[in-house]
């Protein structure tokens, strides 16, 4: 318990340090406009992060989130272009595609016993390829596909300077945290990630738990896609490229152990805020994109090194306490 709270304080501290550094070096950084823009950026990564937290808690990984976003967006664009379905149904179809894609990942992992990394690396390619195949072509050229219906693009807006996407993100994060802490599904996620054998002996359906976690990622990706496309008012075959990197980074910085069993949605929330702040700051400093990736990559490595050092240290300390207790 103590360890997880400490870990959260550490990521909060990192976030705070970053905010102070950027605020000190740019007058523009702390303006309300910029802060809202950071939150808007956080939301897309964060919404997907809620689902990915579930998967990473079980010890899994999902690399296909970015491609999944492309696929969901393009399916919606096709429905918009070629059918007369009302917008709500188009959104439902998008969500269905997301869940199916997530279940597809989950089934490959749980039924065919393909390692998570390889399974989702493959579907990362497959989903992106499907996006190209169903992309709407004009004279053989793929162009960005407008999604300009009035009753759709309002989703990209907001009320009182607060974007809807931020509100939805907060709702989903709260729901995610409640699921983790107050339902047996949540407990099962921790159990599976921490000790599969023990979970099995306790009668938990391991495969179902993991499958549902992947489906949750699919659902979260589809929700994120709806808001992303509503904001851009179009979709392209390239939408979501590299998204998986940002999402995984957010979850890891937020304190989820990649080996499973440790972390929660509040951590991911902090992690997502950290990554978005970093993005924003780097962008405002006009550092080129390549350096951005170097900085982000380095931060991920540092966080993972820190985590493994920290857990070992904590384990040693508790062990020594045990020993001194035992010798008393």
């Amino acid at each position, binding site marked *: *318990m103590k360890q997880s709270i400490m870990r959260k304080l550490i990521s909060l501290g990192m976030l705070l340090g970053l905010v102070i550094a950027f605020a000190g070096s740019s007058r523009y950084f702390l303006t309300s406009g910029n802060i809202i823009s950071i939150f808007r950026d956080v939301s897309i990564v964060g919404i997907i992060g809620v689902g990915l937290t579930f998967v990473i808690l079980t010890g899994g990984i999902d690399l296909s989130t970015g491609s999944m976003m492309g696929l969901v967006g393009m399916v919606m664009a096709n429905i918009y272009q070629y059918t007369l379905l009302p917008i709500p149904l188009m959104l439902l179809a998008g969500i269905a595609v997301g869940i199916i894609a997530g279940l597809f990942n989950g089934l490959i992992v749980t039924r065919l016993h393909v390692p998570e990394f390889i399974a989702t690396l493959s579907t990362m390619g497959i989903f992106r390829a499907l996006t190209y195949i169903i992309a709407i072509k004009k004279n053989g050229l793929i162009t960005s596909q407008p999604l300009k219906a009035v009753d759709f693009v309002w989703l990209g807006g907001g009320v009182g300077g607060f974007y809807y996407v931020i509100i939805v993100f907060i709702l989903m994060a709260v729901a995610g945290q409640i699921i983790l802490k107050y339902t047996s599904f949540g*407990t099962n996620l*921790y159990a599976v990630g*921490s000790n599969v054998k023990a*979970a099995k002996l*306790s009668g*938990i359906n391991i495969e179902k738990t993991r499958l549902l976690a992947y489906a949750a990622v699919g659902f979260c990706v589809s929700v994120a896609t709806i808001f992303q496309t509503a904001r851009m008012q179009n979709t392209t075959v390239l939408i979501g490229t590299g998204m998986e990197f940002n999402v995984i980074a957010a979850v890891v910085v937020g304190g989820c152990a990649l080996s499973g*069993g440790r972390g929660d949605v509040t951590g991911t929330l902090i992690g997502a805020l950290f990554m978005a702040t970093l993005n924003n700051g780097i962008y405002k400093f006009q550092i080129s994109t390549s350096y951005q990736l170097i900085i982000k990559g380095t931060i991920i490595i540092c966080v993972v090194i820190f985590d493994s050092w920290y857990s070992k240290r904590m384990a040693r300390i508790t062990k020594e306490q045990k020993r001194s*207790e*035992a010798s008393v």
Partner: protein
Amino acid sequence: MNIMLEAKDINKSFSGVKVLKDVHIEIAKGEVHALMGENGAGKSTLIKILTGAYTKDSGSIFWKGKEVEISSLRDCQNLGMACIYQELSVIPVLTVAQNIYLGREPKIGKTGFIDYKKMNRMTQELIDNYEFPLKPTDMAGDLGIGLRQLIEILKGLSCDAELLIMDEPTASLSGKEAEILFRTIETLRDKGVSILYISHRLEEVYRLSDRLTILRDGVNEAVLIKAEIKLQKVIRFMIGKEVDESNGSVKTLTKNTNETALKVENLTSRGKFNDISFEVKKGEILGFGGLIGAGRTELVRCLYGADKYTSGTIYLYGEKHVPGSTKKSIKKGFGFVPEDRRGEGFIPLLSVNKNIAVTNYDLISKKLMAISSKEELAMCLSSIEKIDIRPPDPDKQVGLLSGGNQQKVVIGKWLMRELKVLIVDEPTAGIDVGAKDEIYGLLQALARSGVVIILVSSDLQELLRLSDRILVMRKGRIVKEFSAGTVTQADILEAASGLMEERL
């Protein structure tokens, strides 16, 4: 007597080999019933049949007088039996209460949300009932192994288990933790819970059990009541044979007077072993006896440089040797055959050829970076011939060989070097009799050529047969040395169980 569980005429074979022959066991209400037997006597197989992990070939199981079929752990739990596993199945990231009610959490009405208040209250009631030193909200991961075991016991009790099966429950406990467990077992018994207690530690069985069933080679050897549980008697039933030189249950040791090859002084690794000092002469086979968890494997791993030790000194032919890395140890003439053959002994997907070469690349000539595959093959062929690996195919994957031949490859790679010390940890575990004899022959021939052999073995017959001298370890210390005169399996067992000090 009110019999809870009775198993009658249980038979079980694995690939034609009978491991249980008409075995019978019965456990009465409110009794601690111990099950003992040497390694391979069939204890675990019997337990696995009772808990539904294996299916029996024939025989019947009765629960409270009614015949039952147990084909899964669920069946076993539904009847009211719970198994406390040797490998702990507690989940460290969850609280005590979450662990106990994992998979069957109480819910708030029909909302699907866990009722933590109720769950913690139910857990507290359980804890109070048995007076365990636990809190429902403690994180399991912050607790010691002993307390984690109590969680598991509570988990069993929370489903109203009337029979607890404990498989070597003290294997990883400290003395103090074991004491808490013993008291718990006594409390449980007083409350009418039956316990089937599997152990190879005589002193525990003596202390706890009301009755004792002894298995030997898959057959019921004896059922003893408390008054009959006497050291000599138990050992005689477990070993089964009359004391006789010819069957390896007794040996006359002879003193080796060569120069000292390896000397260890006050070697300590905190929490694993303490203050170990011994000497080994050139060409001597030194056997280490003791129970599992006595610290033997940890000790030899440190000697080889696979693990680090806290303090102490090692001398090799008078020269101080600090085994900083396995590479350094190998250069100095050490060889190591690990206990976990499959996990650490060889590389299953590589060929015999590569497996033998992999520790010996420093002996094979190279052109630039490229090794001479001709020499590599020659080395492999010579070792195949030396140790008679079958089939004699250098390209065969080692993972596909039989256990005996796999072990020969592991030993064979060391024969290519100029060895000074060969450490072998359980060299013939899971190996057929023929290959066993060949491996014994190899080790004895090596010793004759002047190599020091350090043997760790839980197989008493093997220990007696090979060793020139035997050190017995217990709880991380050397408690007894057998260096001259005759020694029997019973002597070693007595020393290993700590009964030398406190005779029954």
